[in-house]
């Protein structure tokens, strides 16, 4: 995958949002995706198509961001859903381990059953700060801890069996969030 620009790019067509993840999805580039998705949901977008064909892997925080989007769509009661497509066996296992296969519409590589055509690559826009090589320096400790706590909370809401898996991490993050004042920078 060397030579290909890694990061998260997005296209919005009507009420459909298309997301393409190239490289890894992590706590570092999950924040721009969360910001963008929440804005799109506010605008009334209801179907989120996430192409994982070039995604090398996702950490639990990133999956928690996707879970948060899925939960919000499910609560909206308008039939909104997260559709993940081109999912490798490895990523399917991750989704199943966290019970997210019940929240998302999961489509394996080569077996996309959504019948949905992805727009051309040139119509996608790279999310600012979604390239992992560039993001780490701009992150704030408090906001990152808060963001991770929220993401893992989403995973636990999506499937309560996740609670023991993340108990050490969430306890640590809760203590950390309690210790520090929030950042003054709303974008950090």
């Amino acid at each position: 995958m060397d030579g290909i620009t890694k990061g998260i790019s997005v296209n919005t067509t009507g009420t459909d949002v298309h997301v393409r993840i190239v490289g890894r999805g992590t706590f570092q580039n999950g924040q721009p995706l969360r910001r963008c998705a929440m804005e799109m949901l506010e605008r009334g977008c209801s179907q989120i198509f996430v192409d994982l064909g070039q995604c090398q892997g996702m950490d639990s925080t990133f999956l928690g961001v996707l879970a948060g989007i899925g939960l919000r769509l499910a609560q909206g009661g308008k039939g909104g859903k997260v559709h993940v497509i081109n999912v490798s066996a490895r990523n399917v296992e991750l989704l199943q381990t966290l019970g997210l296969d019940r929240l998302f519409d999961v489509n394996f590589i080569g077996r996309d059953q959504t019948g949905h055509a992805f727009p051309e690559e040139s119509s996608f826009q790279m999310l600012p700060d979604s390239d992992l090589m560039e993001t780490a320096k701009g992150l704030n400790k408090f906001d990152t801890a808060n963001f991770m706590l929220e993401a893992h909370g989403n995973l636990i809401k999506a499937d309560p069996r996740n609670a023991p898996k993340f108990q050490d991490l969430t306890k640590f993050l809760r203590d950390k969030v309690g210790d520090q004042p929030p950042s003054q920078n709303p974008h950090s």
Partner: protein
Amino acid sequence: MKDFQIEQESRGAIQLIRLHGSLDMYSFPRLESQLQALFQQGHNSIMLDCSKLDYIGSAGLGALIGFAKQARDRNGDLKLFRVPDRIYKVIELLGFTKVLQVYDNEETALASFQKP
């Protein structure tokens, strides 16, 4: 993406685990099993060589905190050494340096176990 590999050696009473590749949610259960097996065998002082680690996920780091606490509860510890800069920045950003002790090399990590 490199496959995750684990090598284990002994340094007297200290167990040394060398990690290779990516430590993510997919590969972490292998390390988890190995650490649990060591605890069951009574090996509570463990150091992880991270020099060949090219990625570690947030859940993996969170679980290492839990193992470090378990090791300390048993009068041992779990320490990291030769952590690549990119990964150290993540550990520092998340504030995990308060809980996970990180050393420059094997010698200093090993020596830290001998200090009272």
